[in-house]
């Protein structure tokens, strides 16, 4: 393949054996309509202008590329740079594809946006663009994630969105995606499903990669040269594709994707204790197997029967059994290497970044921080690592205070409940 960049935005939506459009017949014309709208818009200069305008003036792009001097000194290895996507409006990279898809939805004459969300960041960004573009909005969120990320539910509702807790299955991201697909099947004509990662049926992986690639494009300009390594966390893979994409054809640049290691790459009570599709299980076998779920072919955490399994991670946004088909392909051809970070290492990385640089990374992004720290230690000082801080950590207040056992904060909460 001459250009990976070109290949991974192809009109056909297959990437090696991965990707495709494995959806019920009712959704095929809907996906075709979206595909057509996207590839037409891509050729339209006014679409690009509208999008860039919103990136700059609404979301606050370009986001800074920041040299973590203190962290670098502390680690004593390669130079660590941080792409601060957390400084976007709504606090994460998710706004990038939400703005793009909202313009597409408008162009298609849709009246209603629906979305799934894990950590709530994508839901929040969807609710935000729905408010801005005057569209109705419904967000599906696993009931367990609602518990973990309650503040984001409040903010989504403030923006006028309806948040539906999904009580089926493991009550996490995958169940929310299924619920959103069912909604789309029921309302195919007036609704746009604003899918929030580089997964799902064609054209979603292509569309979201296209809207996220601005992250890497900015890094390239800001750095004024090529880095040696790029590091990003991977659940579905939207922030990783965003950072990696523009460098795919620069062979010198190595790429590291960090999956959620949860409590370790093993099973607990018959269920996966992690969400690392490429992690090696105790028997040495890769945890994820090729499957076809939620409309696309990729690696999924599944059992011996082909049933999709529940996953575990401290971060709701990475707590997902599948991985984007482009990333599955990049894994298989060896262009992107995968590793994982376990929950405890993630918390340690979160703390270290806060103490050395004054930046709270989201727990999802803290996986990338953990991966970058580990990598930096093994490299000489003249090497450059760029890690993607895909979101800011404010939203994780309750998980972190619980994990750190902060008694004063617990007392504060008790006091607050008296006032609400």
């Amino acid at each position, binding site marked *: 393949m001459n250009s990976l960049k070109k290949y991974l935005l192809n009109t056909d939506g*297959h990437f090696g*054996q991965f990707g*495709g*459009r*494995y*959806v*019920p*017949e*009712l959704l*095929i*014309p*809907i996906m075709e309509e979206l595909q057509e709208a996207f590839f037409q818009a891509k050729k339209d200069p006014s679409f690009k202008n509208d999008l860039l305008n919103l990136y700059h003036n609404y979301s606050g792009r370009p986001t800074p590329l920041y040299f973590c001097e203190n962290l670098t000194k502390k680690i004593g290895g390669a130079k660590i740079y941080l792409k601060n996507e957390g400084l976007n409006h709504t606090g994460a990279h998710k706004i990038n594809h939400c703005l793009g898809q909202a313009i597409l939805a408008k162009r298609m004459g849709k009246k209603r946006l629906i979305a799934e969300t894990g950590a709530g960041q994508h839901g929040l960004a969807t609710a935000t663009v729905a408010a801005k573009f005057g569209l109705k909005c419904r967000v599906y969120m696993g009931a367990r994630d609602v518990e973990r990320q309650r503040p984001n539910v409040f903010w989504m509702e403030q923006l006028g969105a309806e948040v539906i807790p999904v009580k*089926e*299955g493991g009550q996490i991201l*995958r169940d929310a995606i*299924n619920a959103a*697909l*069912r909604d789309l*099947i*029921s*309302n*195919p*004509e007036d609704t746009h499903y604003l899918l929030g990662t580089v997964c799902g049926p064609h054209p979603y992986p292509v569309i979201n990669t296209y809207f996220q690639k601005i992250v890497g494009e900015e890094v390239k300009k800001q750095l004024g040269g090529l880095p040696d390594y790029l590091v990003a966390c991977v659940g579905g893979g939207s922030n990783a594709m965003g950072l990696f994409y523009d460098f795919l054809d620069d062979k010198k640049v190595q790429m590291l994707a960090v999956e959620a290691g949860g409590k370790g790459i093993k099973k607990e009570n018959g269920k996966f204790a992690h969400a690392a599709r490429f992690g090696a299980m105790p028997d040495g076998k890769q945890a994820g*197997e*090729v*499957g*076809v*779920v*939620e*409309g696309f072919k990729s690696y*999924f955490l*599944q059992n011996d*029967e*082909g*049933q*999709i*399994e529940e996953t575990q991670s401290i971060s709701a946004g990475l707590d997902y059994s599948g991985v984007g088909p482009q990333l599955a392909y990049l894994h298989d051809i060896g262009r992107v290497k995968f590793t994982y970070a376990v929950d405890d290492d993630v918390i340690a990385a979160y703390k270290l970044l806060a103490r050395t640089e004054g930046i709270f990374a989201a727990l999802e992004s803290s996986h990338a921080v953990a991966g970058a720290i580990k990598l930096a230690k093994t490299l000489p000082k003249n090497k450059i690592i760029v890690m993607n801080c895909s979101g800011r950590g404010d939203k994780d207040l309750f998980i972190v205070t619980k994990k750190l056992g902060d008694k004063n904060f617990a007392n504060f909460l008790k006091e607050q409940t008296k006032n609400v």
Partner: protein
Amino acid sequence: MTHIVAGYPDLKTSEKLALLMADNGADFVEIQIPFSDPVADGTTIMQANQKSLDGGTKVEDCFELMEKVTKEKAAGKTQFLFMTYFNIVHHYGIEKFCKKAAQCGCYGLIVPDMPIDEEPQEKYLENCKKHGLKAVQVISPLTPERRLKMIAKAAEGLVYCVSKFGTTGQTSELNPKLSSYLKKAKKYIDVPLAVGFGISTKAHVEAIWKEAEIAVIGSKIINIFNESGGDLKVVQKFLQELNSYTYRSS
């Protein structure tokens, strides 16, 4: 045509239900192999899938069930099909799955998330054909004529027509545009049309019969089963009431 979820509420009862349907006039019975992510199914069937899986139903159990009912009803008119999602087939191995299903006496497969567009890389239709299984195609009210032509070429046994927008078993009203939709389908498709999703009453069946050969009743029977506390006699009574309507030799 009727529908059961294998292993719901348990394997023995789902076998009894399948036989009961055959004895009471169902010309086709869909046996669903449960899946963790049944995206085309509504609440009733989704929950039945989950309960079956919670009860430990394995794919091999479903093959055994298929073999039992097809042997038992070998002399009858009823055809038994497997309905499931593509990951189950893919994970088992497409060729191996088709071979095994055929050995068990299965008539055909309904796999709603395996559109013909993915045939070049999956060779699913090819394997069905090789093993004498009818790969049932699905159409919907949104399927454009261009696709109807494509699907008509691949059609075998029957074509499943999703009656309306939505997942299985949601509303009680038939799609008001059903007639024109089915007329359009008939222009291209020669095999019998089976109309499903939200079909629950005699009146629905009668209406469908004006336009198509087969009415599919799925969630409704599971609901009747559930509401009666699992009373097979109540299910039988419902089937008998529909008997003269659901069966029509084509």
